[in-house]
């Protein structure tokens, strides 16, 4: 329903698309078929097709969470008196979220490997292929944006009258365009200047760096503003802010607000011109070589590889670790496979590396500085034990991110090997995967936190460090036991509802882990003996969950799939 409506909306501008050199009949055809496919869930190996119900359910859940996020954004809309400044904040946050989603979740839409064989040999020109991809992502973004913007739309309508309600949708479309074309232009520039063979590599590093940067900015911007911010803040006064796209969007309200500073309203034109300019540049200069470059991306695979020489003699490091921590061959197989695959899978690295950066950034900006200088903050740190707990429990994020993505792969069909080989207990493979993730990603990270904690809080916090280690491991294993009772790299990724699902996961994780952390904090500060009770309890639970997960049988797996 919604898809068809959005498709119609997009095809309203067929004049523009034709003007750009696209074949609109083909364009509509490609878009329609892609939307149909997105709504279908691929089958994973050895599993029967799921009912349609849970797709609908997931869609609704993501709509609800988008709505909630939209309500949260209202806070920015009414925190500041000056309407343009508050609108500026609102659109800034919104734009950040969109760009972030685009970069992390939508690169698959932009570079669909199947297209090479299905579309490239057909008489479809580059501009059509390029526009199809761009508009496809536009429709998806719009689906996320609509529920998220509803609260803002209604609130602004009440505040500033019907003109505002009429204006809002147009500005919203412009906002989506800005985010989309900006990211697109970056990708295409990359595609243009990086060798096709290296492109995938370059792309993933670009994504990692860019998402870390965005994340850092997201937390830095409010902090920057706070220095000279008050209820009376006026963004328009600062020429620097007037260069930002979110200011252009916000300034369009100056056309309808009575008695507003009229001179600044012309900035809103930039919001219209900027995406048009971006689109024109991309279609004109970058798109013509688009398909050719896409075609070349995987083409180098056809070349016979040069026989690689093993440089190191004897057993590799990971192999020795595997021997050390696994006694059972099946567990070891799961461990080794996960260890190696996580090192080489671009998709996995792209998801997990930023998480390492997010936690320190998040910690520094939200909990450390809080309006004071770095040296002052570090000086007062030992007195504030609650911050230690925030840091300790935030480390869950690394583990939960790894757990989520270790089951996903583009080559999920290769998981047939587990079904074909004499694996008695599939749980053995799964626990091997968990061990590998825990040792490879979580342990080094947690060690760094331990060093940091011991330096600032001293050895008195050792019991806390142990308990939180147990709790975080327990929590992650529990998540895996409940939600991911499947083989590593055995599921395909669904871009559909990706934005919504990520949010649900983050919300739930933070909620539960927050509770755990609070209980731990309570015990640590008021009843220290309780700490040891918790420790024992965590150990027992950990052992139970571990046992249950490691002994997952084929029958349990079948149940988990339904």
């Amino acid at each position, binding site marked *: 329903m919604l898809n068809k409506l959005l498709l119609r909306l997009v095809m309203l501008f067929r004049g523009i698309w034709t003007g750009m050199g696209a074949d609109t009949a083909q364009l509509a055809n490609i878009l329609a078929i892609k939307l149909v496919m997105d709504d279908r869930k691929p089958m994973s190996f050895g599993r029967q097709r799921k009912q349609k119900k849970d797709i609908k359910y997931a869609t609704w859940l993501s709509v609800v969470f988008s709505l909630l996020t939209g309500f949260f954004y209202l806070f920015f809309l009414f925190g500041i008196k000056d309407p343009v400044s508050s609108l500026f904040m609102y659109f800034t946050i919104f734009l950040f979220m969109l760009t972030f989603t685009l970069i992390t979740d939508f690169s698959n839409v932009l570079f669909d490997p199947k297209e090479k*064989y299905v579309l490239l040999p057909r008489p479809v020109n580059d501009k059509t292929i390029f526009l199809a991809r761009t508009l496809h992502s536009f429709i998806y973004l719009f689906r996320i944006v609509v529920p998220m913007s509803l609260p803002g739309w209604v609130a602004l309508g009440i505040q500033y009258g019907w003109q505002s309600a009429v204006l809002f949708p147009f500005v919203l479309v412009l906002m989506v365009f800005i985010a989309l074309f900006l990211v697109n232009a970056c990708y295409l520039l990359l595609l243009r200047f990086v060798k096709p063979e290296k492109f995938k590599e370059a792309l993933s590093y670009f994504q990692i760096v860019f998402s870390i940067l965005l994340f850092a900015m997201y937390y830095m911007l409010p902090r920057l503003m706070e220095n000279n911010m008050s209820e009376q803040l006026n963004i328009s006064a600062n020429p620097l802010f007037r260069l930002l796209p979110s200011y252009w969007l916000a300034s369009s309200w100056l056309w309808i607000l009575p008695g507003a500073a009229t001179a600044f309203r012309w900035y809103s034109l930039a919001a219209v011109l900027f995406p048009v300019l971006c689109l024109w540049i991309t279609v004109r200069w970058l798109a013509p070589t688009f398909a050719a470059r896409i075609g070349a991306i995987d083409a180098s695979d056809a070349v016979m590889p040069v026989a690689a020489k093993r440089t190191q003699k004897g057993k590799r490091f990971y192999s020795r670790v595997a021997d050390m921590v696994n006694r059972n061959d099946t567990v070891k197989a799961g461990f080794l496979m996960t260890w190696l695959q996580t090192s080489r899978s671009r998709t996995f690295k792209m998801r997990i590396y930023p998480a390492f950066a997010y936690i320190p950034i998040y910690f520094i900006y939200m909990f450390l500085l809080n309006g004071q200088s770095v040296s002052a903050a570090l000086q007062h740190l030992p007195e504030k034990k609650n911050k230690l707990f925030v840091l300790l429990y935030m480390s869950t994020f690394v583990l939960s991110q790894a757990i989520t993505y270790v089951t996903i792969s583009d080559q999920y069909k290769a998981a047939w090997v587990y079904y074909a080989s004499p694996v008695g207990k599939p749980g053995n493979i799964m626990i091997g995967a968990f061990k590998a993730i825990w040792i490879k990603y979580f342990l080094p990270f947690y060690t760094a936190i331990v060093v940091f904690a011991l330096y600032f809080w001293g050895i008195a916090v050792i019991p806390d460090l142990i308990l939180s280690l147990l709790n975080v491991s327990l929590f992650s294993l529990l998540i895996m036991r409940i939600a991911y009772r499947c083989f590593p790299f055995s599921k395909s990724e669904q871009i559909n509802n990706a934005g919504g699902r990520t949010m649900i996961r983050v919300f739930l994780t933070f909620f539960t882990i927050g509770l755990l952390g609070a209980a731990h904090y309570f015990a640590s500060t008021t009843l220290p003996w309780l700490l040891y009770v918790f420790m024992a309890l965590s150990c027992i639970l950990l052992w139970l969950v571990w046992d249950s997960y490691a002994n997952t049988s084929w029958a349990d797996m079948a149940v988990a799939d339904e």
Partner: protein
Amino acid sequence: MEPIITIKNLSKQYSGKTVLNNINLDVYPGSIIGYIGPNGAGKSTTVKILTGIIADYIGDVTVAGKNLHEDLLEVKKMIGYVPETAELYDLLTPYEYLGFIGKLYHLPDHVIEERSQRMLDSFGLLANQHQRMDSFSKGMRQKVLLTSGLLHNPSIVILDEPLSGLDANAVIMVKELLQVLKQEGKTIFYCSHMMDVVEKVSDRIVLINNGNIIADGTVRELKQQENETLEQIFARLTGNEHIGSKADAFASVFNTNAPTE
């Protein structure tokens, strides 16, 4: 007769490694070319260039008088391609997929409908046309792939391992189909590793090795002895005549150091 495909001085490199080294080839309409070579010889690179998947190459490729660099879309309209990797959008049904492909060639709906129904029916796949392809066997996918490659009635058909996964009946049908297409004046570019099939269906064999064409002619012309098969010709020309001893070496692994099982 004018050649329908002309390849002149075609070269292609990937990061310094030469994959195609100055290939020259004329293909005439109404013939079946068996395009063969060992793994990594440059076969699929040639095919990808012909079908427009790879666009940066050195040299000239002309199809029906149109240069690939200048009239890529026109050339693509004339070509039907069945890729080796059975990549298709398998979340769709054959009906939806063929409808989609047909529209990319601007075929009217009723033509797509009629052709795809009849083609699927010939393959015995009509009953499955509204079933999602992710549940299909390899052979069923291959049938859909063949149908999608021929749907727009191309004058040049490029087939890369077209028989893979097909059942015996379908194999016979496709082989006969090739003869019918040839009689209609279509040109068929047939890439395969199954030498016995290539030998039977092709009018002319082109053998490529290390990016060079090392043999070009009818099977009869390539034979050194009367009863030499294409398989033996292949082994002789690609320098691998001692395959028998390699197989022995492979199997002997189990005899020397496998005490347990």
